[in-house]
C-alpha cells in the first residue's frame, strides 16, 4: 500500500517529551487533537488505552504501535513520534521503546487500517532504517525515510 497517502509532514512528532507509557500515549493523542484531526480527544485516548490494557503494543527493537478504534475520527489518522532515549512501553523484548507509530481508525469503516500498521512495522524491521530515523533532524527527513 502507498504510505504517502496517509503520512504527511504534520503526522510527525519529532521531539516527544513524555517518558512514561501513559504520557507517550496522551502526548500523541493530544498532538493529533491539536492538529484538528480528532473530534473527541478523551474518547480517542480511551480507545488507545483500552487496547493497550489488553496487551501492550510494545514490539521488539524499540518499536511500539499503540492504536485504537474510535468514532472520534472519520478516517485513518496516523502519528509518528520519536524518543531516542527510550521509554518503558512494556515491550515484548523488555527493551525501551524509541519509535512510536499511533493509528486511530473509525469503528465501522472499511479500509486498510491494520494493514498500514503491518506495512510500517515491516519497514521498521530494518535496523539501518531505525538508526536513520532516530538520527533524523526534521519532520521532512522522517517522511522521506518512510515513504
Amino acid at each position, binding site marked *: *500500500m502507498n504510505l504517502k497517502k496517509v503520512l504527511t509532514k504534520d503526522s510527525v512528532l519529532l521531539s516527544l517529551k513524555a517518558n512514561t507509557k501513559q504520557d507517550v500515549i496522551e502526548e500523541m493523542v493530544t498532538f493529533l487533537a491539536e492538529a484538528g484531526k480528532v473530534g473527541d480527544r478523551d474518547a480517542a485516548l480511551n480507545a488507545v488505552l483500552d*487496547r493497550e490494557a*489488553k*496487551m501492550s503494543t510494545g514490539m521488539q527493537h524499540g518499536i511500539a504501535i499503540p492504536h485504537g478504534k474510535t468514532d472520534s475520527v472519520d478516517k485513518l489518522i496516523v502519528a509518528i513520534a520519536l524518543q531516542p532515549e527510550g521509554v518503558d512501553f512494556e515491550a515484548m523484548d523488555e527493551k525501551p521503546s524509541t519509535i512510536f507509530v499511533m493509528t486511530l481508525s473509525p469503528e465501522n469503516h*472499511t*479500509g*486498510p*487500517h*491494520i*494493514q498500514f*500498521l*503491518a*506495512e510500517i*512495522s*515491516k519497514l521498521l524491521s530494518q535496523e539501518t532504517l531505525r538508526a536513520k530515523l532516530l538520527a533524523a533532524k526534521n519532520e521532512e527527513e522522517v517522511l522521506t525515510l518512510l515513504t
Partner: protein
Amino acid sequence: MTEAIPVVVQAVHQASEAGTSHGITHMMMLLVLQLAVIIIVAKIGGYLVQRFLNMPSVLGELLSGMIIGPYALGGKISLPDIGLLFAESNGFAASYELYGIATLASIILLFLAGLETDIAAFLRYSVVGSVVGLGGLLAAFIVGDLISVVWPGNGIDSFMDPAALFLGVISVATSVGITARILAEKRKMSSPEGVTILAGAVFDDVFGIVALAIVMGMAKVSMSGGEVNWGEIGIIAAKAIGFFVVVTSLGLIFARKITAAIKQFKSKEVIVAICFGLAMLLAGLAEMAGLAMIIGAYIMGLALSRTDLAHEIESNLKGVYNILVPIFFCVMGMMVDFAAMKPLLMFGIVYSLLAVLSKVIGCGLPALAMRFNARGALRIGLGMLPRGEVALIVAGIGLASGIIDQGIFGVAIMMTVITTLLAPPLLVKSFEGGSGLRKEMKGGSENIQSIALELPSRDITEFLLNRFIRALRNEEFYVNRLHPTEPTYQVRKDDIMFVLIEDGKTLRINVPDEHQTVARLMLLEELLSLSDLLEATQKMEDLQSMGNDLLAGMF
C-alpha cells in the same frame, strides 16, 4: 445473438396470433415446466458429481443437460398434452425463451467473475504470472485454431475462418477454480507454483475476454459476407481492446462516484439491483458495439470490484447465481447433439489432447525460462489446464450466432469435460517430489510461513475464524472459500495472498514470509477482541434465570 431478439418477438407474435392468448400461455407453461425439470435435474446432477466424484458441479450440470436434452431422453419421452418436453426448435436445442434465460445466467456468471477479480493484483502481479498467462493463451489459441484448419472433413479451411477462430478462443480460457481447490487441499496455494498459476489465471481471464472481443468482431464481419483482411483485423482488434480499456478505465475511475450516488438509496436491495441493471446495460452496449454481451458484464464487474459494494453485490446475487447458472450449464449440455458429433469424434479427441498439450507447453516453457525447473514448469502447465465456464459460454455464443455448428459445439464441450477431468489427478501426481524451483533460486523470496494457533475448542476456532474473515473483509481483502465442504479460504489483496485453514481446534495460516506481519497483527487484534466478548458474557445474568424467563408461561 443480435438476431435472436427480433426472432423472439416474431415468435411470440406468431404464437399469440395463432392461438390468441392460449398460444403465449402455452409457451410460458412449457417454459416453466422445462425450467422446473432443468433446475431440479441440474442441481441434483451437480451435487452428485461434486459429492461422489469430487469434481466441480458444472460437470454434473452439463451431463444432466446431455441426458435430458432433445438428442437423448428429451427427444424420446412424449408427455400427454405437451408432446416432447425438450424438442429441437428451428434446428436449435433450446427454445428462444429458454435460451434467453440461459443468456441472463451467463451475464450473471461473468458479472460475478469480474467482481471477484482483483484488478490491482492484475496490474501489479509478478512478471512471471503475466508471461505464463500470455504464453498459455497464445499457444492454446494458435494450436486450437490450426488443428481445426489442418483436420480434414470439418469444413474449416482457413486460419481466419470464424469457426477456426472460435475453436482457438474456446481453448484459451482457464477455469482456475478446480486448480485452486487442489492447491488448497495439498497446501500448495502459496507455493511458487501456486502463486504463479493464480496470477497467470487472472491474466488469462482478462486477455481471454479481449481475445473473444477481437474474434467476435472478426466473425461478425465475415458472417455478414465481408472479407476480413489484416488491415481490418487491426481495426477490429483496436476497437475491441479500445472498448475494453476505455470502458474498464472509465468504470474504475467513476465506480466510486457511481456507487456513492447509488448508495443514496440507503436500501441494499435497491443498490444491488441497480448495479446488476448497470451490468446488463453495459452487456447490451457491448453487443451493440459488435462485441459480446458477457464482455460488458465482465467489465462492469471489474469496475465495481474495487468499490466497497463488491462484497455486498456478490453475496446478494449468490442466491440468483445458484439457481440460474446451473440452468445455463444444463442448457449447454442439452445442445450436445451426439449424432452430429459422431463424425467429429476423432477430431474432438485430438482437439482436446492438443488443448492439454498447448497449455502445458505454452505455460510451462515461459515458467521454465524464468525460474522454475521442469517439475515446476509441468505443475504450472497442468494447473492452467482445466477449461470451464468461459469456454462453455464462448461455445454457446458461437453456436447461437451460427458461427460454429452443433458438431463443433460438441467438440468444445468434450474438450471442456476432458481437460477438467484430467487436471486433478495429473496435478496431484505432479506435486509429488521436490521443489519446482531451480536450485540456485531455492529459498528465495517465496518462503512460506505456517502460523498455527491452537484454541481450546473447535467452536472457538470456528468463531475466531469467522471474526478474522470479517476483519479481513473490513480491511478490503478478498476472502473466498475454496472448497464447499472443507473450511479453507484464500485471502487476496494486491500482491498479498495467503490461505486460511480451520483444522479441528487449530487455525492455520500459510502465508509468504513478506506478508506475515499483516496476517499476524490482524489475527492478534481478533484474538484480543475475544476478551471483550468473554467480559460481556460474564456480565450476562445468571443463565438459570435467563432460561427460566424463556420457558416461563410455556406450560
